[in-house]
């Protein structure tokens, strides 16, 4: 295994050299900064080894925001390239790499961590628990995700980017047609991150089933907790499929097997089949928690309980079940015959029914309410019309025969951005504006928030609405250029301009974070929105033990009920007992490094090195098996002191949006 540095860091491409320099400089900057501020110890004890679900949530969110930058930059580059016909800004190879990384990063390394991050922050609090069921596993999940994300991201500057689309269709993605190592990154990095996600799924299922506080029956759970639970069920049912599909892909690429190859009996259709068996549930994995966030936000800012709570629950369960039986709608054109296509057309269209139930329930939650136009609520409001368009075009795609004309055109690209951006990105923004005070003890600036909102929503529609028409005119996806004669030019330009506005919106959001961290008022209520669920019953930012003692729940919207009836709000000091907490652990972080290294060696096909490095994985597992750490206890006095302090400060609060 000779190592050729020239080929590893191909030094002949300005774009890539630029990125390499930027990465090196940023890394040096960060290391120097931390050293200068003497923050290494703090970083290690407070963050890298933490098992606190709230901190893990914050780390997920930070990674998600960073990945949004990367994915967004990819999106902007693509828009720049197709702004005019026959542009020479990117060549075909670059464009292919960029849409591949854009798709993967946006879905797996942006949407997933953002939502899992918010789950981590909110769900244990919403059910009145001290932490998740397996705090250390939770940390490991995060660090595996992180290892996968980092491994995937270095592909742009080391060794070559994957370039077979986020759908990674074989045989193109196999060694027969892409012999470079670029596509190895996809198979290996997604595998590592996927294992992390699977463990998150198991962790939250157990947490939600077993760790609800007294009186919180399933039908009293906040809607975000419900969607998290159902999402995790889908994760557990879908991610193992990805694990196997990726294992097959890895074997084909690294060891010359014949699962999806052209030669020796392989079948490329099997990849498409397995990919979408996972891939379709995956889009609901990202959409359902988003629906949960909207439910919380809409109920809070309409000052009403969620309309049709029960049918909301049944509809998410319905969506979850249906999501497992629609995968073929992504390849109606593969020629499986009218019987197959008919069945899957029907199952797919049926998803419109439970989704519609949710839509109407949201609308009727607002009816007779008092709708407060905070930034968080604005996102939820914009979601309704935008997602509606994405949804109905989805139903159009679902009609197998019609899909023969839409498939792989920009109509499809418009559809999925119209569901993914309102359905995920809007929700994440809504969630961040909503839970920000809970996470950090200060609010995001509402005025900047509105700028962010309007720029982003207008830019989004301007970018993607023209794509419906482009698709109907015959413009295809994944094409790096188009001819002037095609008549696509105006709409493409319009779309590019929209993307700039969109980016400006996101830039305002980043500035908002910066501004708020520096200048926002710290003197705010622990319940600034007059909200309804238990996470608002404790301090902001939340004490590391969450609750002094676990609250008792009597109804849905538990905290609202507590406030209205003035029960359980005041601290009952007699109820305070010692609290048992799990200890921090450096093992997850070490495992992240080991997995990253093994993954890197595998990507470069240095099998011996990978085998040796993977001993580290087993060492980690053994170390964990022999770890009998029982955690520690917080003493009563400490709890009392903390509680008295924040409850006293609460009286002097001057910031409350109420």
């Amino acid at each position, binding site marked *: 295994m000779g190592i050729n540095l020239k*080929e590893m860091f*191909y030094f002949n491409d300005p774009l890539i050299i630029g990125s390499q320099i930027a990465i090196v400089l940023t890394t040096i900057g960060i290391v120097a900064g931390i050293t200068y501020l003497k923050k290494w110890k703090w970083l290690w004890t407070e963050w890298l080894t933490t098992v606190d679900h709230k901190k893990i949530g914050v780390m997920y969110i930070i990674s998600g925001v960073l990945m949004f930058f990367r994915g967004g930059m990819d999106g902007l580059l693509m828009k720049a390239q197709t702004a005019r016909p026959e542009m020479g800004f990117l*060549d*075909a*190879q670059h464009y*292919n790499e960029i849409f591949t990384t854009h798709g993967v990063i946006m879905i797996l390394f942006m949407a997933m961590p953002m939502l899992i991050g918010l789950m981590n922050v909110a769900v244990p609090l919403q059910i009145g628990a001290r932490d998740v069921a397996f705090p250390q596993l939770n940390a490991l999940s995060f660090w595996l995700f992180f290892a996968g994300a980092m491994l995937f991201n270095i592909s742009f500057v080391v*060794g070559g980017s994957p370039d077979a*689309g986020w759908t990674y*269709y074989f045989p*193109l993605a196999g060694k027969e*047609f*892409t*012999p*470079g*190592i*670029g596509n*190895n990154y996809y198979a290996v990095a997604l595998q590592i991150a996927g294992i992390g996600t699977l463990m998150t799924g198991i962790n939250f299922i157990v947490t939600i089933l077993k760790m609800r506080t007294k009186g919180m029956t399933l039908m009293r759970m906040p809607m975000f907790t419900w969607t998290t639970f159902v999402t995790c069920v889908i994760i557990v049912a879908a991610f193992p499929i990805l694990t196997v599909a990726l294992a097959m892909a890895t074997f084909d*690429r690294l060891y010359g097997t014949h699962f999806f190859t*052209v*030669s*020796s009996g392989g079948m*490329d*259709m099997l990849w498409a089949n397995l990919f979408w068996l996972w891939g379709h549930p995956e889009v609901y994995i990202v959409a359902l928690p988003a629906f949960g966030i909207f439910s919380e936000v809409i109920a809070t800012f*309409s000052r*009403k*309980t969620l309309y049709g*709570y029960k049918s909301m629950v049944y509809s998410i369960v319905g969506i979850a079940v249906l999501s497992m039986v629609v995968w073929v709608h992504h390849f109606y*054109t*593969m*020629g499986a*015959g009218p019987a197959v296509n*008919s069945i899957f057309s*029907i199952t797919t269209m049926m998803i*419109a*029914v439970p989704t519609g139930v949710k839509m*109407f329930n949201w*609308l*009727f939650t*607002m009816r*007779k309410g*008092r*709708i407060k136009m905070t930034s968080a609520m604005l996102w939820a409001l914009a979601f309704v*019309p935008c997602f*509606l*368009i994405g949804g*109905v*075009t989805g139903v*159009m795609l679902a*009609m*197998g*025969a*019609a*899909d023969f*004309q839409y498939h*792989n055109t920009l109509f499809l690209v418009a559809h999925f951005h119209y569901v993914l951006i309102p359905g995920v990105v809007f929700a994440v923004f809504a969630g961040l504006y909503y839970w920000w005070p809970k996470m950090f003890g200060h609010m995001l600036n509402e005025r900047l928030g509105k700028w962010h909102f309007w720029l982003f929503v207008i830019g989004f529609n301007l970018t993607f609405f023209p794509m419906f028409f482009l698709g109907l*005119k*015959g413009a*295809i996806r994944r*094409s790096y250029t188009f001819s002037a004669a095609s008549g696509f030019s105006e709409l493409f330009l319009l779309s590019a301009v929209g993307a700039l506005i969109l980016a400006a919106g996101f830039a305002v959001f980043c500035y908002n974070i910066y501004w708020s961290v520096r200048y926002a008022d710290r003197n705010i209520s622990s319940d600034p929105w007059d909200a309804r669920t238990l996470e608002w019953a404790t301090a902001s930012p939340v004490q590391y033990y969450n609750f002094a003692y676990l609250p008792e729940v009597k109804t849905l919207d538990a905290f609202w009920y507590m406030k209205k009836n003035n029960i359980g709000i005041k601290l009952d000091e007699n109820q305070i007992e010692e609290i048992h907490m799990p200890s921090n652990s450096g093992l997850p972080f070490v495992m992240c490094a080991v997995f990253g290294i093994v993954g890197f060696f595998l990507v470069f*096909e240095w099998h011996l090195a990978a085998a040796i490095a993977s001993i580290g994985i087993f060492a980690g597992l053994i170390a964990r098996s022999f770890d009998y750490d029982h955690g520690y206890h917080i003493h009563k006095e400490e709890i009392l002191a903390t509680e008295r302090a924040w409850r006293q400060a609460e009286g002097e609060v001057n910031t409350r949006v109420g």
Partner: protein
Amino acid sequence: MKKWLISLLAMSSALLSGCQTNMVVFEPQGPVARSIMELINWSLLWMLLVVVVVLTLFGYIVWKYREKKENMNYEPPEEHGSTTLEIIWTAIPILIVTALTVPTVKTLYALENVPAGYESKKPITIHVTSADWKWIFSYPEQGIETVNYVNIPEDTPIDFKLTSAGTMQSFWIPALGGQKYAMNKMETQLYLVADNPGSYFGRNTNFNGKGYAEMEFEVQVKTEKDFDEWVSEAKSSAPKLTEQQYEELLKPTHLGRLTYSNTHLAWVDHSKPDSKSYTNPELYRGHGYPGKIFEEEDNYRSPDAQKDAVQNLENKDAHRGDTHGH
């Protein structure tokens, strides 16, 4: 939301009235594309209804119940839902979905057969073989093979039999009908009919590597007389394709139009499960770190393939990404 509403209305009224929209999907040039368009129009109607209803409701509610200075004291009522309403908004979507399902299934089945009204006419079979990054059309009955263009007679059902020599492609002539995949060692099938003579645009829509964007072809629809003339002319004047030339043809390149007076089906039909594979990974080397390549027994390896590959690598720095020079 008004903006969307207006543009949606504008769009659909333009579509439904059938005037010039420049949208190829709405300007069908044959019965297959027409039946799909009718299905699409049907769905648009219903979707428009859904969008209008939901947006109206949305606009009304948000406007009426927004927080104002006057209603700051208004405390919303406790209400938990309504079974009647729940039933209504479950049932109506089910009805709409049913209204969409029935024609969808009908069309799906219809598309697998010769279009209605053309059953009496004997279809012409054309084998379509896609390779990186070109389209090869074989007329077994006529004994002709063309590359990157296909001539067909008007008003005659064409039975396209699709397969691929390597990667997965999708065969699409939007003016004439929907698309289908072409896959190695697999045969998919598509009936199309063209109403009128003319030139239509066809292409691959399934991403298959560097040369994907340019993987297009032209469909020339001729009168039957012109078509027969073209056939006999091609038969008499076009050169014969040899196996060796064919292997050359399958390399990942862009080519212009070619015509031959025989077909490659004589020695290989890529749709057969045990047909020979013509893969040569060396020709796909790009930038970045080279990975291991696995030798397959039936890999295509002409004597100069290796040389080509080496040259390919040497040139790659000079013009990365544009190996297709046309």
